[in-house]
């Protein structure tokens, strides 16, 4: 029995292979040049910003040394008394942590809504006018490239001390970050449902609602939950500039060398982030599970 694919004569094969190689050469060249440029850029960046490996290796021990200094002395004999002394401010810290989480929650929610509204305008597959896409994208860029701590400083000057500037700063930064991610998700959707709804006479809002939204919603939720977790960390330092939450005590402890307070507060923050990570993961899996059950 002959093979499933009779092989062509060699000279014909070579000609066809050469034609294919020629047609794909440009793409392969681009990948190659891109790779070389990337390596050059990394080397150049390291050299011009004076990243020194020797300096790093000579001083790297200081980093764990600082942390070691923050560990309280806890002996087994007086365990509970030692822990109580270490966590002497637990009540106040928990209240401040609660503030931090509320700031995070409000800021993330407001930012997710902002990003949600803007992402569709930033998606080239849904918006005809390049001008609208351009302006929206640049706006989102501005929102996310200004560090949230800088926004917080400005808002503290405008609205005074307290959690409000923290919420606003996180909301603005989150709008920029999530708007970009959301828009990327929207640009990757399957175009067939979009054409289906357009062909049925739907307007732009109906296309977004019925063709785009069902395809992107679960991804949006995943990204928003991830952002919530990231924002807990962001909100934890808001207090550095007086914008509310645990940060104000953390920065005070660092500045005044209250070593054990630093470790206590950091531990509380880490535990909080872990708990939030566990909970949001549950929520995400629930949502994905619900999708595949349908």
């Amino acid at each position, binding site marked *: *029995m002959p*093979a*499933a*694919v009779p092989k*062509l004569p060699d000279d014909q094969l070579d000609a*066809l*292979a050469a*034609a*294919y190689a020629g047609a*794909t050469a440009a793409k392969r060249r681009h990948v190659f040049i891109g790779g070389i440029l990337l390596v050059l850029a990394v080397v150049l960046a390291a050299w011009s910003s004076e990243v020194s490996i020797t300096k790093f290796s000579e001083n790297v021990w200081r980093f764990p040394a600082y942390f070691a200094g923050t560990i309280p002395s806890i002996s087994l004999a007086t365990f509970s008394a030692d822990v109580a002394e270490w966590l002497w401010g637990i009540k106040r810290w928990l209240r401040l942590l609660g503030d931090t989480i509320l700031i995070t929650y409000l800021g993330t929610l407001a930012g997710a809504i902002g990003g949600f509204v803007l992402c569709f305008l930033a998606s080239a597959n849904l918006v005809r006018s390049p001008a609208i896409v351009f302006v929206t994208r640049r706006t989102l860029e501005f929102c996310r490239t200004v560090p949230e701590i800088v926004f917080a400083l400005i808002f503290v000057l405008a609205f005074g001390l307290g959690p409000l500037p923290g919420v606003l700063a996180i909301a603005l930064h989150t709008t920029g970050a999530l708007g970009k991610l959301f828009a990327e998700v929207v640009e990757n959707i399957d175009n067939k449902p979009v054409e289906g709804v357009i062909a049925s006479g739907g307007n732009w809002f109906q296309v977004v609602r019925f063709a785009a939204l069902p395809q992107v919603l679960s991804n949006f939720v995943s990204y928003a939950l991830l952002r919530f977790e990231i924002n807990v960390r962001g909100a934890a330092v808001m207090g550095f500039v007086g914008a509310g939450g645990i940060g104000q005590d953390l920065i005070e402890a660092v500045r005044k060398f209250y070593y054990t307070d630093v470790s206590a507060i950091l531990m509380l923050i880490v535990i909080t982030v872990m708990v939030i990570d566990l909970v949001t993961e549950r929520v995400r899996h629930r949502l994905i599970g619900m999708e595949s059950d349908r």
Partner: protein
Amino acid sequence: MLQVEGLTCRFGAKTAVDQATFSVERGGFIGVIGRSGAGKSTLLRSINRLVEPSEGRVMFEGIDVTALKGNDLRRWRARSAMIFQQFNLVGRLDVLSNVLMGRLAEVSTWRSLLQIWPDKDKAIAISALEQFDMMAVAAQRADSLSGGQQQRVAIARALVQEPDVILADEPIASLDPRNTRIVMDALLRINKHFGITVICNLHSLDLARTYCDRLLGMSAGRIVFDGVPAALTDRIARELYDLEAGEVMGTSPEQGIDGVAVPALGAAMA
């Protein structure tokens, strides 16, 4: 020889394939017919284990296909190439790369991931594409092709697997009459010249009668007919498709629809 013994596939409470038993000699061209929802796709997909059978066995030349795992399972999938209704190409890869997917089971993983294909495999892929006059578009993205062209790429991908069996799941349901001919003729050519067994789900009775040398009729997951096309009487066909008398013919896309009475409102819901 392919033997299917008591094959049953359930999705929750729904039994998609119910105690299917049949065997196929090497070199046969088998048509599987029946209404949509009868379980044709599930039957084919349980043969190459895209769905896991709930009960029963599939044997191929003494190998228990239903018990295969890991590497052996992948090798079996390469030997039983599948052709899909929606082509299932990777739209963002170029045409030749799509055909080379058919060589994945033969090429070492690192070579395939870096796309350093051995010359031998490249030669096979190019020969297969050229056989369908498709080398001219080899460097184009697969999703830039028309449906008929995409299906030809998919058949080339199946062929370079050097399969023993081709499982074709309504390969022409998204194609126009001309491409329907091209694709069905290609399957027939493969079947007759290379002796590759073809098992093909079809909607159109006319096509099934024209191309297949044996038909399996499915209804509600059961195999209710197994025989040569000539044995498929109009009465059986009517039962298979749940049609009124005289409606059996004219199910092929080539035939006109003149003389059709306007169905009553709500008839489409039945």
